[in-house]
């Protein structure tokens, strides 16, 4: 219909032959730096990572591509993307690649266990773009209104990097970010985990995941489920994910045809 409306009457549009299609596919994959076409699992078999969030980012980037021909210019960030990390607008503008990762593992120490309660997440960061460095990384988790007695209180949500896990004693943790939020609030929470993702890039074997704790003002532990945090079993568009912004070290080199 796009072509029929004569919006771009000069576009060449004809049925490609099998050989032509293969040649074009090969050419585009080579430009994209992919060895072959990816084969994602169909919906339902495996959780996919934040396509709606990424689509918002795509629209922000695409409008920037249209507006600015020569240099990257910071543009206002769409409201759905605005977070606690201040320079995200610049980060988006300067990013060559943005990746959102599926949460592979989710472990809970909830109300059925001893206090303190916590929630663990793990992301596989081995499939990273070559020759690019991380400029920012965020762990994003959706919070609904809290249940129970803590509804009028302030929650202190801390995210830690798991440095070393031990079989029978507590893991070694490194504090990454803290957010203070009213229990009745609802929306996406974004935690800055740039430091951890840089360490994981250098040494993937140290990627033991993230651990999240919630406390009240008096230090009392709160179960993440009761605090309204949505986990892996929540609705698909509200599942937690990791988003990482990369910048290319050098412009890609293309072999002449």
């Amino acid at each position: 219909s796009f072509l029929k409306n004569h919006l771009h009457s000069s576009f060449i549009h004809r049925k490609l032959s099998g050989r032509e299609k293969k040649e074009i596919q090969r050419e585009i994959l080579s430009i994209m730096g992919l060895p072959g076409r990816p084969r994602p699992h169909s919906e339902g078999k495996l959780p996919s990572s934040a396509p709606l969030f990424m689509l918002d980012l795509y629209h922000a980037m695409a409008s920037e591509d249209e507006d600015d021909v020569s240099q990257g210019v910071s543009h206002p960030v769409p409201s759905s993307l605005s977070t606690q990390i201040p320079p995200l607008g610049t980060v988006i503008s300067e990013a060559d690649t943005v990746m959102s990762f599926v949460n592979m593992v989710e472990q809970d120490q909830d109300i059925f266990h001893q206090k303190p309660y916590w929630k663990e997440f793990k992301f596989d960061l081995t499939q990273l773009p070559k020759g690019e460095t991380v400029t920012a990384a965020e762990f994003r988790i959706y919070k609904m209104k809290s249940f129970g007695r803590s509804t009028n209180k302030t929650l202190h949500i801390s995210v830690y990097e798991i440095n070393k896990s031990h079989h029978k004693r507590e893991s070694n943790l490194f504090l990454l970010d803290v957010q203070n939020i009213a229990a009745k609030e609802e929306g996406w929470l974004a935690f800055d985990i740039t430091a951890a993702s840089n360490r994981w890039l250098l040494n993937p074997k140290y990627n033991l995941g993230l651990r999240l704790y919630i406390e009240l003002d008096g230090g009392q532990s709160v179960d993440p489920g009761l605090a309204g945090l949505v986990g892996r079993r929540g609705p698909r568009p509200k599942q937690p994910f990791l988003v990482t912004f990369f910048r290319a070290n050098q412009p890609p080199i293309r072999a002449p045809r």
Partner: protein
Amino acid sequence: SVRRAMKKKERKTNDLPQSNIVSGKYDHYHESEGREMCKRHELYVSFRDLEWLDWVIAPQGYAAYYCHGECSFPLDSCMNATNHAILQSLVHLMKPEAAPKACCAPTKLSAISVLYYDNSNNVILKKYRNMVVKSCGCH
């Protein structure tokens, strides 16, 4: 005097989008000789036609512009020509064996962003800088 006249014409026309540019006197001169002047051509690449919509989320396709045509003296009023291209065209006119014609190439490029799934269902948004030809000219 030729250069001054061309500069004047360039200033008038360079800001216009490609599709709004009306052919000038010299364009007809070239067309009448059966030669195609240097300009931007459009070719739409559809990811749907390539059967890639199972992994490419956006866009559904893109206009893969390219530059094609001749840079013959006098260089046409509607194109961006470098001073060197003007000089080279003159030298080519006088001594065709000594200097080739100026080259029809992109003068402005912009980025394109592609959103797609990888094998692990992670979502990747990649920006390819200097990919889309915005305008063509003689270099």
